[in-house]
């Protein structure tokens, strides 16, 4: 089945979200949909899946004009999307989630045995190492997403839109995803693959379509559209992304360690992590999904109470860590989950940015609006946050700018060491480069930076040194000087794969 959008426009009140987008997905084709935040990808997806009606243009299914007047209509005709955020029930089993809303019945009761057997067959088709009876929440984010894809296809989708499916994944999990996409291709299912990761798109896609400012600005095969041309099309300008490792990041720990960790343990997720971060050093915490990167950072920060281990910050022991204590001692943390753990939805940029530092901006418990706004404008300038003003709602900002606000919150307490958990996750190329610049300038100011990323290339470009985690323990370290992604892949591959199943 082929799906085509022809010269689709969409306006919301006075705002034009789409100004003429065309996209054609053939059966069995993997079609990359790319563009910076605000290019119109989300709106297009919502039109393709029936959440929105186009203001102009038309949708064609197998060459016939169709109208998706609801998501249900789109689903019935075989078009469905799997979103970045997983819309399943974490507390129920994999099988219950796959068959959510259409459980096989035996009389009045759910036929659990049949449901589990059929789920097992579906999972096997996609090569997913998951038990149908496992609680969904017990799986990693990556596998949860695969279950979500499996569910969508089992609902009869013939065109599947994957909205940033890999943003939560890394290493082996991405390979699992690629396997799933290959299985879809084999079955003649059309795939719209939305991703910020160019290398994945080049590896996976048969065709690439680039949106900018609500228009289709390029559509070609990967061979016809080399990286430079693609990025130029996305950004609307000629410009490379060259980000060579900075001088400070090139060498090993210089001088005394600002952050020193010995024998950190937390449940079975962090099992013996020791590492050091020096002044002016950017250390990358690498590892597959499930290797314990996030858990390590959270245990260090005190968001999870570590079971054992010593943490020293500029030589001072951090005992009984808790977020407020860590922040007070100069250890900052940026969560990977911007929506659930970062922003205060509905509140302003000002509130979001100054949330952690309020007591320092207050006298007798009353916050000084003037000092708040001074701090906000300082960070708006230094990080290049694009906002209409300190009073703008955080939700009105692009993902990249939201992330910069959260980075500013993290820096507002003037930390000695910052831990950034996948700071460029799900943000566009331009914002990514700016976040990289900000991180480098932190290191140049003498801070210690511990950073993770789900993109190998990013870690290599950003960090001077990598600490590689495997199954919650440090498996090794390497300098990034002259290292290729393949070098790190080899190192990751050499380490035993993380147990995620």
């Amino acid at each position, binding site marked *: 089945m082929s799906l085509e959008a022809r010269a689709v426009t969409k306006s919301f009140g006075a705002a034009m979200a789409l100004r003429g987008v065309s996209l054609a997905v053939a059966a069995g084709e993997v079609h990359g949909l790319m563009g910076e935040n605000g290019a119109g990808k989300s709106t297009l997806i919502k039109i393709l899946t029936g959440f929105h009606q186009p203001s102009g243009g038309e949708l064609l299914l197998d060459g016939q004009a169709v109208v998706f007047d609801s998501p249900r209509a789109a689903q019935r005709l075989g078009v469905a999307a799997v979103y970045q955020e997983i819309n399943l029930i974490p507390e129920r089993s994999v099988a219950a989630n796959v068959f959510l809303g259409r459980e096989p019945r035996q009389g009045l009761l759910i036929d659990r045995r049949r449901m589990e057997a059929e789920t097992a067959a579906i999972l096997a088709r996609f090569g997913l190492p998951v038990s149908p009876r496992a609680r969904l929440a017990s799986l990693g984010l990556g596998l949860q997403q695969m279950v979500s894809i499996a569910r969508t296809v089992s609902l009869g989708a013939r065109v599947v839109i994957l909205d940033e499916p890999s943003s939560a994944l890394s290493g082996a999990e991405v390979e699992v995803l690629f396997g799933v996409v290959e299985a879809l291709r084999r079955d003649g299912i059309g795939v719209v693959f939305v991703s910020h990761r160019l290398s994945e798109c080049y590896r996976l896609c048969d065709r690439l379509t680039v949106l900018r400012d609500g228009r289709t600005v390029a559509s070609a095969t990967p061979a016809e559209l080399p990286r430079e041309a693609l990025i130029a099309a996305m950004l609307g300008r000629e410009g490379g992304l060259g980000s060579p490792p900075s001088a400070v990041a090139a060498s090993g720990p210089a001088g005394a360690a600002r952050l020193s960790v010995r024998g950190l343990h937390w449940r079975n997720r962090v099992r013996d992590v020791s590492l050091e971060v020096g002044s002016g050093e950017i250390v990358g915490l690498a590892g597959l999904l499930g290797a314990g990167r996030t858990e390590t950072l959270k245990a260090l*920060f005190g*968001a999870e109470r570590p079971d054992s281990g010593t943490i020293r910050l500029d030589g001072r022991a951090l005992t009984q860590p808790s*977020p*407020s204590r*860590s*922040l*007070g001692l100069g250890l900052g*943390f940026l*969560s990977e989950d911007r929506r*659930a*753990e*970062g*922003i*205060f*939805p*509905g*509140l*302003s940029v000002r*509130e979001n940015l100054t*949330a*952690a530092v*309020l*007591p320092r901006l*207050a006298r007798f*418990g*009353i*916050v000084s*609006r003037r000092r708040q706004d001074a701090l906000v404008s300082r960070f708006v300038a230094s990080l290049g946050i694009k906002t209409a003003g300190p009073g703008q*709602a955080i939700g009105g900002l692009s993902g990249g700018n939201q992330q910069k606000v959260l980075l500013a*919150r993290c820096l507002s*307490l003037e930390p000695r060491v910052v831990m950034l958990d996948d700071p460029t996750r799900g943000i566009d190329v331009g914002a990514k480069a700016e976040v990289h610049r900000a991180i480098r300038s932190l290191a140049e100011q003498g801070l210690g930076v511990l950073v993770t990323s789900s993109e190998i290339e990013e870690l290599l470009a950003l960090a001077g040194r990598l600490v590689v985690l495997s199954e919650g323990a440090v498996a090794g370290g390497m300098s990034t000087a002259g290292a290729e992604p393949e070098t790190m892949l080899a190192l990751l591959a050499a380490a035993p794969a993380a147990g995620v199943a």
Partner: protein
Amino acid sequence: MSTPVDVAAAPRVAATSLWGAAAWLKARSVYVAFALLVGFDMLATPGFQNPFAVRSLLFTAAPLILIALGQSLAIGTRGIDLSVGSVMGLASAMIGLSLGAGAAVALPLGVLTGLAAGALNGALVALLGIDPLISGLALLVAARGLAQAMLGGARVNLPPGVAYATLGRAVFAGLPLVAIGALAVAGLVGFAVARSVWGRRVVFVGASRTASFLAGVPVRRTLLLVYGASGLLAGLAGVMATARLGAADPNYIGAGAELDAIAAAVIGGTPLSGGRISILGSVFGVLLLTVLDASFIMNDVNGNYAQMLKAGFIIAALYLQRSGG
């Protein structure tokens, strides 16, 4: 967001189109509804224009305003305080029990009783992590029971005295003193919500508990103070209501008041999903419900139908509020 300060600034969003005008109105449905209801009453309700009727209304509204303030704080954290009505009753019973010691002891003791109940509720929520719905429900039952036990279930008349009379009857510039007091407290709470570190943290906790925790916000302390404050305000409300009634009554004082407080807060623009508090809206929510009750009575609407009409009115107001979000 929806602090009194911002409500004043919000009309800058120009209502250019009809749709915009409708949205603008919806976002302020509590004020519009209040104006419409008062307009209707002025024209059609016999006796409503009498200043004594207004005065009586404000005497009734004053304690409700206080508990609606506490309720707004609790709801702002994505919680709820179901205990406020019973805590009013408990404060009343404490006054009845300590009448012998004089008003100078009995009245502060009533307020402190509220604080103690609120602190207990806060400890259950913040320290033991009990769902506020459950702890509030437990306290609702327990405080009412304790109040009845303290006075043996009977009403105790207050002795004559300046303090009781001042709280119960005094009028300044045409307004009941207690109403002026309640509005002053509302101003204070509104300012605290808009500008104090604690007030902003209340909103942060409601907007995202996890993000607050990771941003170093002392979530437990903030919650403890919220429920403590709500209890304190309920104690004060119990004192006012007792003085107005001229008697300590463990059965009557505050009965069902928690529902009015919740409705007032939510109608006023403090959503149950937390992260937003409108103190001005809560005050007008109370005024709206009080005027509504009075309208039914003054138009001789049968009490049973009045309840149903009120429920319908609340649902309509909430619906508008929801769409206006």
